[in-house]
């Protein structure tokens, strides 16, 4: 619940994800690489929630920005001497923002199914470029040997993934803070208005198209940062960051957690990636089946996602 009637104060429950992440760091040190992956996908899902959950832009192409960010960091680390992680991150953010603004300006004049197909087309084109441009991207083999220097010239990315985990945690915290500010701002309230009733927004004089291009660009920037983090943590980037599959994955994560409610983007990737990690060990060939069943259950019985289930128990309180 955001907008002019909302209380923007941070509630104590909103600190729980950070407490949980801190506890994870100390209690489960052998799972830190999974933990870092979860944090990255939370940031990715958060960026998707901004356009899908708040502005109502339906997309199957959000991996375009994630992938561009991932390959930007990868290409810098593998082909150039730019190994400073924050510089790589800034470069990835800039290119993703440019791609978001450019493609958004073209496709956001359309809506619904046309828009969905165009978003899919853009990430499919990028996937094909990454596939063919082997000298830059490594093609189907992926790009290995991505060099990532010390963070702030001080913290090495260690074998156990401690630095990587904390690095992703800080990045996610900043991302969460920014998204939260946006959602509670007049701009966020205005986005909700566009999602609720576009005709009415036109009639109160809002240049809807430009507003959508703006949020699409912000979201693309965040997705690009998430992609760059993934490359830096793995010191590798492959074709699986582009195309329909990662777009669909992050969409499923967000739906699992709950769309348009900020913390759905936290709960979804946790449930998805832990289920994936467990199922892939138990049934290496059929793990997607388990995810499918999970999605069907959520869509049939919990339309608001996992957080929607919690609402049932706190019916009288405002949604988290």
């Amino acid at each position, binding site marked *: 619940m955001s907008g*002019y*009637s909302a209380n923007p104060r941070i509630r104590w429950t909103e600190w729980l994800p950070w407490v949980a992440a801190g506890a994870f760091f100390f209690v489960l040190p052998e799972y830190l690489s999974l933990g870092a992956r979860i944090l990255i996908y939370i940031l990715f899902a958060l960026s998707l929630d901004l356009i899908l959950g708040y502005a109502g832009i339906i997309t199957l192409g959000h991996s375009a920005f994630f992938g561009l960010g991932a390959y930007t960091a990868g290409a810098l680390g593998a082909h150039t001497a730019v190994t400073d992680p924050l510089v790589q991150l800034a470069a990835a953010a800039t290119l993703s923002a440019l791609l978001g603004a450019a493609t958004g300006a073209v496709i956001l004049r359309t809506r619904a199914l046309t828009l969905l197909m165009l978003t899919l087309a853009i990430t499919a084109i990028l996937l094909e470029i990454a596939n063919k441009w082997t000298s830059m991207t490594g093609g189907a083999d992926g790009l290995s040997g991505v060099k990532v220097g010390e963070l702030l010239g001080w913290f090495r990315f260690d074998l156990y993934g401690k630095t990587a985990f904390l690095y992703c945690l800080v990045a996610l915290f900043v991302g969460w803070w920014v998204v939260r500010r946006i959602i509670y*701002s007049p701009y966020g*309230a*205005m986005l909700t*208005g566009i999602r*609720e*009733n576009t005709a009415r927004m036109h009639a*109160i*004089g809002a240049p809807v198209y430009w507003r959508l291009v703006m949020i699409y660009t912000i979201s693309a920037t965040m997705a690009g940062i998430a992609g760059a983090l993934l490359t830096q943590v793995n010191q590798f980037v492959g074709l699986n960051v582009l195309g329909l599959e990662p777009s669909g994955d992050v969409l499923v994560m967000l739906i699992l957690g709950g769309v348009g409610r900020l913390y759905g983007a936290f709960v979804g990737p946790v449930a998805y990636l832990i289920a994936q990690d467990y199922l892939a060990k138990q049934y290496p060939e059929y793990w997607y089946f388990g995810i499918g069943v999970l999605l069907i259950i959520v869509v049939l019985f919990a339309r608001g996602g996992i957080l929607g289930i919690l609402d049932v128990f706190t019916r009288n309180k405002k949604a988290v």
Partner: protein
Amino acid sequence: MYSLETKKLCKSFGALTVADNIDFRLEPGARHALIGPNGAGKTTFVNMLMGALAPSSGQILLGGDEITHTGQSSRVRRGLGRTFQITTLFRSLPVLDNVALAVAERSGLATRLWRPASAHKEVIEESQDLLAGLGLADDAQARVADLPYGKQRLVEIAIALGLRPKVLLLDEPAAGVPSHETEKILSNLEKLPPDIAILIIEHDMDLVFRFAHRITVLVQGVVLMEGTPEEIARDKRVHDVYLGEAHA
């Protein structure tokens, strides 16, 4: 100078002409009604004024400036407000937010990214004042969808007033409202600021004759006549095409 003016405004869909050389003038501070039987082209006319529909030919002027090819949102920013025949609201949002979104757009605060919306006291206070003026002060925190229909119609008006329009188009403000609540709508319309030029499109003849100082009759895309309510009520042709039918 007129608040709103059209010159030879035409609109055809293929062979069907729905607006035929409409010359229309709205004086500053006017209380003007547009009436006509079903299919007379009233809604088409309003849609052309608002920029939702492009005219085939002719001109539209707002306060003397040509706006014929200006986009919808920029017409609103130049002072042209409207309400919808079918309630067009942010149904799942609180009543206050419905109005505050309009106030924020008008005052140029809608793109602020950082300070919480609820900390923009000036927007909230103005919205609350508008709601209070329409007798909706107690409903500010209710979801619009939970309001009775008559009150939803008033929220439409509150949103339009939040834009501080110079010209306000009221598209059947009493449509769908039970007759015993029409009185409440009318009394609120009569309280609207006198400096706003108002064009009302309405089927309820009692409301039209009590509210409007001038009336334009539109029949099959053509202006049949324009005059004071007395002149319209006396006119034989109007009786034949419109009032005769409506009062039969």
